[in-house]
């Protein structure tokens, strides 16, 4: 019991929680934007892979780190655009299209990586984002290591939470996105473009998802591995429901998840002898399912989610 308390009070635990939560924050926000506009984006898992691969490869080819971030976001946006075209004007099954995007994005990434690096045994490394060292703040007790020794991408993720919240809550664009996800006719009747809003939301959301992937290869690790995304995208889809499509709750959900994951790693080292390590590896996925089951009952889905809308067919 003391051990658990020690873990929960340690700086490294909370720093790790935030680090683990970072890609999920990007992913949940991205999925949230898509779903708020009425479109489920199951391409998320593949878009994570694309972001991870493109970000890493851009830097490996000689660009700066932020160049990598930009390329990752653009690549994610591009796959998002494909999903948007298939599901919005064409109104195709969002489930199948999303899974198709995931398969397509993943295989494009793997093929590109394999083709660029045919014969490497160990994945080449890049110099990743370093922890920000902010004078004074970074030296604060507890808060310093937890908040102010994170990498710039973690800060970008937190900034995105604020930005998405502000846009949804305070701008005409946000109102329009919420409206189009509830009743596209309301937007159409007021002369706004349902297609434009939805496509825009999916593209923007997908770019955010790709940043989650980029964090993996450019901040959490320094190389690209096959299978490194490992279901994080699906976890985000579960967390959006848990977060009831609100940015603040999304942050909370991602942090909760990150904390749990960080805890499981630490418990594993403490109790590794007693329990097979895989129990801990399973925990995050089981936690996601539990979160989903808890949230599902009261989930207030965007009313138009999964329903295609065609112009001129009221």
């Amino acid at each position, binding site marked *: 019991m003391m051990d658990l308390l020690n873990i929960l009070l340690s700086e490294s635990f909370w720093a790790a929680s935030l680090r683990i939560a970072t890609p999920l924050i990007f992913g949940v926000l991205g999925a949230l934007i898509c779903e708020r506009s009425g479109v489920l984006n199951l391409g998320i898992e593949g878009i994570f892979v694309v972001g991870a691969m493109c970000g890493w490869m851009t830097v490996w080819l000689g660009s700066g780190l932020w160049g990598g971030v930009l390329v990752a976001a653009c690549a994610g946006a591009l796959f998002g655009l494909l999903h948007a075209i298939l599901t919005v004007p064409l109104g195709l099954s969002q489930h199948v299209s999303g899974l198709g995007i995931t398969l397509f994005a993943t295989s494009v990434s793997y093929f590109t990586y394999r083709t660029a690096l045919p014969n490497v045994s160990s994945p080449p490394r890049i110099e990743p984002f370093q922890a920000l060292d902010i004078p004074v703040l970074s030296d604060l007790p507890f808060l310093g290591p937890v908040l102010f020794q994170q990498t710039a991408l973690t800060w970008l993720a937190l900034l995105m939470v604020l930005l998405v919240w502000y846009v949804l809550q*305070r*701008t*005409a*664009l946000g*109102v*329009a996105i*919420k*409206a*189009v*996800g*509830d*009743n596209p*006719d*309301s*937007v*159409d*009747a*007021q*002369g*706004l473009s349902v297609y434009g809003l939805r496509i825009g939301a999916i593209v923007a959301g997908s770019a955010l998802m790709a940043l989650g992937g980029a964090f993996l290869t450019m901040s959490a690790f320094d190389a690209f591995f096959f299978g490194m995304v490992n279901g994080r995208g699906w976890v985000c889809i579960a967390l959006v429901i848990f977060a009831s499509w609100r940015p603040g709750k999304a942050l909370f959900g991602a942090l909760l998840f990150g904390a749990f994951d960080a805890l499981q790693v630490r418990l594993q080292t403490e109790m590794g002898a007693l329990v097979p390590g895989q129990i801990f590896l399973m925990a995050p996925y089981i936690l996601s399912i539990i979160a989903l089951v808890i949230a599902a009952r009261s989930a207030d889905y*965007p*009313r138009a989610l999964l329903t295609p809308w065609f112009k*001129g067919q*009221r």
Partner: protein
Amino acid sequence: MAENTVLKLSGLSKRFGSVVANDDVSLTLVKGEVLALLGENGAGKTTLMNMLFGHYLPDAGTVEVADANGVLHALPLGHPQAALAAGIGMVHQHFALAENINALDNITLGSEPLRSLKRNRAAARAKIDGIIERSGLKAPLDVPVGQLSVGERQRVEILKALYRDARILVLDEPTAVLTPQEADTLFSNIRSMITDGLSVIFISHKLREVLEFSDRIAVLRHGRKVGEMATTDADEAKIARMMVGADTPKVARQEMSPGAPVLSLKNVSVSGRSQRETLDNVSLTVNANEILGVAGISGNGQAGLAQLIAGLVQPSSGTIAVDDEDIPKPTPSRMVQAGVGRIPEDRHHEGIVGAMSVAENMVIERLDDPDIQSLGLLRREAIADNAVKLAQAYDVRGPGVDASARLLSGGNIQKLILARVFERAPRLILANQPTRGLDMGAAATVGRRLLEARARGAGIVLISEDLDEILGLADRIAVIRDGHLTEAPTNNREQIGLMMAGAAA
């Protein structure tokens, strides 16, 4: 007169596939008048207005709208934005409101640039308050629209149009969801807006309100304009004849004495997810050879009553008995076995499986029947024979019994459902909005079939929002209001209207 014209539609035509929705329709609207656009369901009224508003692109024809100075300009078609900019506001029958945002946001949606980072809500609120004051259209602005009543939502819809400085307001069946009294208020609001310089087109198929509230009447039939007159020159028989193309066939209804009870509900409550699905301590008896009409404003528990009798919900308290036999845990199949025939409200969504064949839809309620299956395998010949027989007997027309049911017209889908239900000679029939959306011919068929079933000895629960339909068919009338069911002492239209509004106990 010409210089007062604010809107001129010329030669508008529109086809959907092989269906001609509008054929060469021309219409003018004069400043400050109320024009009633009248026609049966499917006559093309809504299509015409949707073309005017840019939701549909006409195949041919032009629209001209007067600017603030009264000069007519051609309106670019197929662009709602252009229609809005020209001062045309439309209130759809199905409200185009987002329920997760408040009325203020719904009203201002689209009138602010999406790029701007800040919104000027104070200015918007001031403008809306001004409109509310002038028009009398009161609605809460800061509550999510999902929490507003139907009447309030309709006012928000009209406010939306007025906020966009509409000079021409189109109302599509505005009273369909209102009590007669609410409807009166709406029309008096419209009167006060007209003195403000507004011109109004309202779509309706209710002769009474058209005669009472319009200045001029235009009648559509089968997509064509078949007549136009000043309201002062019109009378009910004349416009009904125009709408139908012949004198309305009156359904012959003979008096019968009711038999034994076939349905009795005792103190039944249903806790539904919303008001429309909730019943509160309802008791009711329906006898053989009797039609009980259930009148009420949409959303007052009709759905709950229908779901209960259809077996789709369990009562939270009380008992339900069919033919004096208690049904403790009703399910759809138990109700069918007990001899209940169900005509669902939403025939496309609940009545048929559109992707399956007409023949399959005709046997979907009797899959346990050994005539239909043996040892778990379908008897395909028997199913096909049954379909051919029923299609003939009930005049179900379409591309054939093997074609997908979704390819049938609305009237033929209803006939398919009637065939399925009536063929089993049910003891009790639940008919929920059985004629909604049907043309007069198909509606008359439904009425005739219900009366035939009554003559045969069935008891019928007829739920309808069309009071005239109930007055025409029912032996007794009950009014549903807030989940309560109260029997009407008389068949007096005024009194039933008051009961629907909850004004009289």
